[in-house]
């Protein structure tokens, strides 16, 4: 091999070193956990968390580079670094939240943590992939692991139902995605995103075929981010899945899906933007409105959070519809705050649950403020952030997102989004009314007895406050990530979409 080729190969393998660490850790946990009992469960969990932390080091080391690895299929840029770090964080948080939960619910620890690691692997691959087939591969790796995790409490009918619904609809949506990829390949003659962008800029003779493909890929992503009308599986899947996994689905899956969605559509299908932004406009409006309105009627906390996750996907789609650099940066920032806040909210739900005593309904939370003041305060803060109260992360995220959409001229969509935010205050605050102003409810174990969970809730609260109060460094990081991804292919002016 010539020195140049050797260097390229070395660079390629270094680029996927974090993925390799996660994959090896997953295999190690799987094998070690094959015969492990519950007493080794916590050790496996800590090992998984440590592996996820270790994988963050090579991710950080690759910062400052903008290159393509593996013959132009894997992007090594600040964009992938940004998403990989948030995904690693979300996965590690999921492990921390799960530690005691897995033991209490009698779930098989080895397989549980191995599946979380495999899902994290797929998510990271989606964030880094610069090739449609590789995105598909990452999506499948992630999805298959998450399907199994959703049904992990397999002796519960509800969990099995969640897994089956999620699997059937997910597999169906994957078909859409794959067919769309095939049509795009037929029209443009390439699956790699950089050449695809160049091919689209040069124009194609097969515009109808291309648009069909883009539409099908759009449907595939809409399923994964739970956008209306492809959201039907979400509440049942979140409600039946083990609670830490519901949080993982609401945050990790959404992060990875939006990472790939934004890279494909925002960064590389910009030439077709007038067509797909019109569709995304409608989907965003429907998603926000349906998510928020149905959330109003929910009695179960998990279902309420599921519809809230749908509504937040709608807000993010507003940014997609805007399709400007600012909007893309706002999406990145919003996702960061959303990851902290939502993981925290699900961690609080986990803290309330015990075997047999599941704090499912909002009515169970009555009087929690008196019994668990710390936990209640954390829940209040996280829900206020989800509502969009200043100065928390949720508010600043929405501010940037809606401002970018206004700058792109989407006045009516922003009006719908703001009205939806007002509606959402009702169901978030209803939980707080139950917590602080009503009597009754069910007893809850002290959080201090569960240090890992305490750390997770603390980190979520801290992150929600910090990202909201000092947004500048995170906004700058999001902007740098975006510029890095853009500079990968176009040395010219950094315009996301040529309007």
């Amino acid at each position, binding site marked *: 091999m010539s020195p140049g080729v050797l260097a390229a190969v070395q660079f390629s393998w270094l680029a996927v070193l974090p993925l390799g660490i996660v994959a090896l850790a997953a*295999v190690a946990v*799987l*094998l070690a956990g*094959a*015969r492990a009992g519950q007493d080794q469960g916590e050790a496996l969990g800590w090992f998984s968390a440590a592996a996820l932390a270790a994988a963050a080091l090579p991710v950080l080391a690759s910062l400052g580079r903008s290159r393509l690895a593996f013959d132009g299929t894997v992007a090594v840029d600040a964009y992938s670094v940004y998403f990989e770090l948030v995904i690693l964080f979300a996965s590690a948080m999921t492990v921390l939240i799960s530690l005691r939960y897995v033991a209490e619910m009698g779930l098989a620890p080895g397989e549980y943590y191995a599946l979380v690691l495999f899902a994290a692997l797929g998510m990271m691959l989606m964030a880094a992939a610069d090739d449609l087939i590789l995105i598909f591969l990452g999506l499948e790796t992630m999805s298959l692991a998450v399907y199994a995790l959703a049904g992990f409490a397999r002796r519960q009918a509800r969990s099995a139902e969640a897994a089956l619904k999620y699997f059937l609809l997910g597999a169906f949506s994957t078909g859409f995605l794959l067919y769309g990829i095939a049509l795009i390949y*037929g029209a443009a003659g390439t699956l790699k995103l950089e050449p695809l962008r160049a091919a689209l800029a040069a124009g194609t003779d*097969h*515009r*109808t*075929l291309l648009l069909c493909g883009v539409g099908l890929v759009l449907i595939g992503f809409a399923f994964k981010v739970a956008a209306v009308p492809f959201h039907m599986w979400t509440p049942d899947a979140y409600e039946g899945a083990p609670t830490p996994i519901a949080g993982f689905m609401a945050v990790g899956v959404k992060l990875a899906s939006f990472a790939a969605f934004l890279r494909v559509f925002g960064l590389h299908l910009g030439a077709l933007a007038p067509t797909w932004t019109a569709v995304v406009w409608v989907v965003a409006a429907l998603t926000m409105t349906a998510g928020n309105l149905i959330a109003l009627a929910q009695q179960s906390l998990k279902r309420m959070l599921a519809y809230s996750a749908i509504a937040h996907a709608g807000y993010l789609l507003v940014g997609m519809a805007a399709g400007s650099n600012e909007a893309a940066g706002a999406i990145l920032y919003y996702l960061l705050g959303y990851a902290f806040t939502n993981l925290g909210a699900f961690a609080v739900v986990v803290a309330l649950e015990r075997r047999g005593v599941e704090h499912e309904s909002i009515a169970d939370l009555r009087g929690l403020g008196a019994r668990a003041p710390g936990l209640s305060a954390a829940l209040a803060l996280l829900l206020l952030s989800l509502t969009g109260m200043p100065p928390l992360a949720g508010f600043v995220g929405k501010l940037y997102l809606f401002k970018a959409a206004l700058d792109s001229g989407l006045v009516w969509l922003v009006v719908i989004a703001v009205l939806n935010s007002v509606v959402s205050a009702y169901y978030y605050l209803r939980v707080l009314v139950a917590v602080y102003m009503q009597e009754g409810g069910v007893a809850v174990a002290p959080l201090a007895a569960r240090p890992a969970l305490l750390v997770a809730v603390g980190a979520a609260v801290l992150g929600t406050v910090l990202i909201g109060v000092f947004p500048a460094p995170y906004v700058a990081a999001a902007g740098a990530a975006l510029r890095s991804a853009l500079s990968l292919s176009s040395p010219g002016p950094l315009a996301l979409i040529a309007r």
Partner: protein
Amino acid sequence: MANVTVPIVVTFVVAAAVVGLMVTVSRLLGPRQMTAVKGEAFECGNPASGSAWGRFSVHFYLVALLFLVLDVEVVLLYPWAVELRSSGIAGLVEALFFIAVLGVGLIYAWRIGALDWD
């Protein structure tokens, strides 16, 4: 554009026409005589016995799954074997890596007792 989309549309139309024709014609022409024998669960001549919801060991499923994985492994190794010389050391390493990954899966199945039959 049209020269690409037309064959696809034609394929869809032909597929729909063939299926529609088959269903319609068999519905129109097929004689329908309901007899007691036809009402039975299995039309293979033997009288049905036992419940349709019979249970069988989950081991069959596990063995079938393992067989499927190794089966597909062989299918994927064929092209590599054909191009063994031209793919060189890199191809050998990748094929061994692929086998190793599946080997780990087999070890895992072994360790959880999927291969024990008692």
